[in-house]
């Protein structure tokens, strides 16, 4: 049949020219630390690059981290130049957790802020299903979008669909998780999981007593963003020679978290350090220590307000590396710049600030809901704060 869509033809080349597993992971598996083998997600070069970025100075307006870029490498976008207003389409992986909710609201607010330049904003939610997102992207290609933003549900599995979108000729902007292809005009994300995991683990291992017992709490296995966080933490812990007594999955369920922490406290008497790959259950973990009548050990959380609040109230020894939700603003900005024919950086690495004891007060806003993310960069957007409440 002649009607073979471009989609189908292109799929041929979909497969892995740069597989994530390709990198070596040799140095990571220091013995005797109980952290086990290094994840196949661990790529030494990426790890090194991300850690280097932590200290890099961003370019761009200082008060707008979502427009800043670390180590920019500009690409030409003249061929996408088009007169506005534009129809921008967004294939979203899911809206099923507070992080994505806050992010998406931020993105919507950004769209509203740019209303004069955007005629239509089409959003399709894949509900966390790879299969649906592939179909969604295909569907969007038939809708006459001027630019396509994709937040992939899974890196590897969405690659063919994104490649097909690139071939369709419209500018594609990918953010949050990446894809295994260079075809999008730009890929926007903060420094990433290694940076997150490293910052938390380094803090915990420095503040706790040497060789003490660390409990690592993870949400669930197999999510690339979270896997990289853990693999970086593992490197840090192994290097610091602390005793990682447990790596447990909480499913993001606070009740399960409390039970696990409770049992570990019982089993080991004391836990000297607490690391987690996401902040969702940080408060529950703190409460578990409180309820057991134990001091809360040095720990990390994330920039969710409930954690920042308990941190301040209970005067914890804590740190909050972030995976800023302000990155949801950037794709809109990038898409409009591309459609203007302006150069953008690819990759577009956003800074990834860390909340520490020193700047805690700056981010803590008692008026926002407990699961709001402080690093939303949304205070200047239309509808703040009501939209996020």
């Amino acid at each position, binding site marked *: 049949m002649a009607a073979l869509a471009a989609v189908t033809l292109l799929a041929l080349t979909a497969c892995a020219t740069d597989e994530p597993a390709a990198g070596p992971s040799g140095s990571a598996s220091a013995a005797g630390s109980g952290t086990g083998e290094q994840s196949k997600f661990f790529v030494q070069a990426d790890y090194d690059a991300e850690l280097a970025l932590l200290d890099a100075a961003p370019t761009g307006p200082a008060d707008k981290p979502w427009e800043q870029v670390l180590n920019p490498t500009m690409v030409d976008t003249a061929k996408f130049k088009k007169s506005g207003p534009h129809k921008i389409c967004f294939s979203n992986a899911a809206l099923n957790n507070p992080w994505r909710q806050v992010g998406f609201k931020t993105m919507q607010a950004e769209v509203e802020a740019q209303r004069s330049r955007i005629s239509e904003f089409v959003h399709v939610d894949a509900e966390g299903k790879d*299969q649906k997102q592939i179909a969604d992207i295909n*569907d969007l290609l*038939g809708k006459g979008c001027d630019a396509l933003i994709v937040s992939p549900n899974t890196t590897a599995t969405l690659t063919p669909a994104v490649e097909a979108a690139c071939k369709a000729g419209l500018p594609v902007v990918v953010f949050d998780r990446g894809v295994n292809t260079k075809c999008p005009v730009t890929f926007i994300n903060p420094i990433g999981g290694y940076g997150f995991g490293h910052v938390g683990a380094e803090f915990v291992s420095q503040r706790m007593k040497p060789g003490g017992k660390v409990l690592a709490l993870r949400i669930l296995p197999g999510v690339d963003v979270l896997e990289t966080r853990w693999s970086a933490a593992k490197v840090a812990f192994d290097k610091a020679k602390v005793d990682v007594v447990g790596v447990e999955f909480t499913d993001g369920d606070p009740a399960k978290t409390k039970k696990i922490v409770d049992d570990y406290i019982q089993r080991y008497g004391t836990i000297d350090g607490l690391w987690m790959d996401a902040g969702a259950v940080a408060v529950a973990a703190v409460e578990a220590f409180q309820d057991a009548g134990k001091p809360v050990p040095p720990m990390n959380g994330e920039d969710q307000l409930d954690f920042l609040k308990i941190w301040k109230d209970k005067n914890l020894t804590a740190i909050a590396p972030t995976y800023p939700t302000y990155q949801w603003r950037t794709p809109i900005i990038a898409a409009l710049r591309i459609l203007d024919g302006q150069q953008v950086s690819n990759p577009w690495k956003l800074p990834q600030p860390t909340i520490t004891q020193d700047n805690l007060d700056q981010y803590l806003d008692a008026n926002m809901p407990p699961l709001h993310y402080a690093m939303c960069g949304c205070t200047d957007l239309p509808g703040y704060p009501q939209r996020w409440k």
Partner: protein
Amino acid sequence: MSARSLLPARRPVPGVFVALALTLAIGWLVVLVDGGQLFNQSTTVSLLHVAAGLGFVAVGQTLVILGGSLDLSVAYVISLSTLVAAETMNGNDGAVVPAIGLALAVSAGIGLLNGLLVTKLRVNAFIATLGVGLLLKGYLDSGYDGPAGTTSPTLVQTLGYQRVGPVPLSFLLLVAVTGMAWFALSRTRFGHHLVAVGGDAEVARLSGVRNDRVLVTAHVLCSLCAGLAGIYLASRLGSGAPRVGTEGLYDLESIAAVVIGGTALAGGRGGVVGTVGGVLLLASIDAVFNQLDVDAFFKQVIRGAIIIAAVAVYARRALRKAAS
């Protein structure tokens, strides 16, 4: 007994197709008013792709439900099958046949385990397949931390993306599988026996049907269908994905599609054609709501209501039939 009631039972058009037609008609209209177009090529292709994935699973699920059983492990079987297939192929076109064979064999093995637990050890199907699902979940969680393997490019190109006009190859495969299942149900002893076991296990047993064997076969076929769905998804995704089955809620959605399609949850009544109707209905609702950019959560509410309403309608109809 009046003569009228002795007429051979005509199978009415399954209500699900009426609902499907209505949904598409209303959806088309609403989308049109909204300024969109429901039946353009890309939307249709997407709809049929979504339907194909769920369809394979739901057809298999129909078989076990007809037999009075249930399979809650399908979601994990799908994930496992994508991994087995993609890892065996590892991007190699030459390995397609062994990979598909191995994926199906592994799936069939799980189906066999399900079947044996349900029949030989007399574990309630709900618990048995839930338990097997947990076993698989443990394996997947501990063995894989993300997508693995690479599907052969040829398979991606054909099963994953090839289409004839607006109809994807995978949907044609679904039609073929449905046809085979329909044929098996109406024209083979296995099919007759399966419906009998679901209708009344004791009657079937006393009529010389080997209930256990029939149910085990149904479970194996169900898992095979799930395995096939896995192979399709592997070719769609380009690699094996350890959580694609659970993320897609294929276990509960397949059961929903089956009952929306008019198959009695208790077994003994229904068929695969209705199931495909149910799958298309769910996919159409997805498509319409996608076009209208309706909140996914609202869609979920609607979906829940539709499942209940559909079954209530069937129950009412059955009640009226019994009263006449």
